[in-house]
């Protein structure tokens, strides 16, 4: 069903997406070197990396519902890459904080994690993402079998914590975290709905392969 590109086309498409996903990072490095990050460069890096981490997290979560709606069977082939990009930006985000904000002072980090709810939830999101990144390989997927799927449903928890993190750090203007939250709610809703229909009607098409 849907558009069925050939292998070569698919590979080219995926390579293009890979390069595209790298653009925000390249741009950041470029602007940093050119001292073009504006009045508050550290904040600019924190914002950009955090924003893209959440963006790719939601993009990862969008893959399955999108496949279901569009019938594009090759879409799930992008999921791992998108997920790893989310982790890549989240790791860069945390590194910016740990390095440029608190200079790798473990005590300061611990204090922030315990004392500042917005950092507590951001940290939790990052911690959740680590095992997911580590077990994202095909080999791991095979080895873990059914458990892999339940493990990786934790992406939703990371998404919720990421949105909460954003929500709690803005001062008054919650429009952006609200938008991310709305997208997340739709994706979560789609997943729950799909599960319910799958349960309700035994003859419904089996989920995934």
């Amino acid at each position, binding site marked *: 069903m849907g558009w069925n590109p050939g292998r070569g086309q698919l590979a080219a498409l995926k390579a293009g997406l890979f390069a595209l996903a790298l653009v925000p990072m390249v741009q950041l490095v470029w602007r940093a070197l050119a001292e073009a990050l504006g009045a508050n460069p550290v904040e600019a890096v924190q914002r950009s990396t955090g924003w893209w981490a959440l963006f790719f997290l939601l993009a990862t979560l969008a893959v399955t519902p999108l496949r279901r709606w569009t019938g594009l069977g090759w879409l799930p082939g992008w999921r791992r890459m998108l997920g790893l990009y989310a982790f890549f930006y989240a790791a860069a985000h945390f590194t910016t904080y740990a390095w440029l*904000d608190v200079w790798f002072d473990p005590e300061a980090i611990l204090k922030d994690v315990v004392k500042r709810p917005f950092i507590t939830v951001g940290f939790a999101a990052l911690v959740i993402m680590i095992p997911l990144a580590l077990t994202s390989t095909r080999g791991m997927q095979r080895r873990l079998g059914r458990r892999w799927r339940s493990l990786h449903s934790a992406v939703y928890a990371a998404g919720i914590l990421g949105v909460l993190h954003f929500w709690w750090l803005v001062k008054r203007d919650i429009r952006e975290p609200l938008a991310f939250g709305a997208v997340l709610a739709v994706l979560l809703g789609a997943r729950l709905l799909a599960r319910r229909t799958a349960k309700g009607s035994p003859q419904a098409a089996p989920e995934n392969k």
Partner: protein
Amino acid sequence: MIIRRPNDILPSEITSHSVYRRRREFLKQAGALGLIAASGSELALAQSPTATKLAAKPGRYSTTDKPTAYKYVTGYNNYYEFGTDKEDPAEYAGKMKTRPWTVVVDGEVKKPRSFGIEELLKLAPIEERIYRMRCVEAWSMVIPWSGFSLSELIRRVEPTGNAKYVSFSTAADRSSMHGLGLPVLEWPYAEGLRMDEAMHPLTILSLGLYGEILPNQNGAPVRLVVPWKYGFKSAKSLVRISFTEQQPKTAWNTAAAQEYGFYSNVNPEVDHPRWSQATERRIGEDGFLSQRRKTLMFNGYAEQVAGLYKGMDLKRQF
């Protein structure tokens, strides 16, 4: 009364430095706009009808900290009426009309009246005050303001014995301020001070910065500057100053009372509930490889203002 910190340099040194910087910036901008046709000389600036110069004599209380670059002072602002991004005010505030402009002064005073902006500009000798500015978001700047102590205006309206507080109301013009449509704060923006804070010589009405009249994004044509409090206390584009017996409502306190107190004095020991106030980043100076700097009690003005809060529990009355 002259209060100066022992390590302060001569005001004359500061002035020449900032005038130099201002001219350079102005020439650059004017040049870019083609305002100064053939010559880029300082004479051309002085005689240019478009020059928005505001002569200021060196004032007391100036800090020795290096002033923040003009482009950051005028390009990285919080002025939610024009949008919530730091770059929004510089982009959109140009639409606001600042002439004619009047400031109504009323409430518990013997001589309520309004002041036209031209009159305010001549009300008292304009001084340059180079102040630290500490934002509640944990960044800071050093800004050469031009203005005079708010007490100059207060004396002229003769507050009654009932005047315990001063409230400040700021412009809320739907046609030029698209941010008024956002449900982030109650408009018009309101701020307030206790009478002794308002009368303190450090508290100024500012009409300019870097030797020019205020750019719109910095609160043109006249704003409050209270250097020992978080930046949001220094209300911009004032249209009304009222003297009251009761503590007035203030915008951020109304929006989130547990996060923004009426006093909002800079205090490294009292954290914002969501982030630390112990340190800050100085805009334009603290880049990638500098550590955050320690925030000073009362933003470094403790010697002058700590007495105002004697006996108060600053953790509870934050």
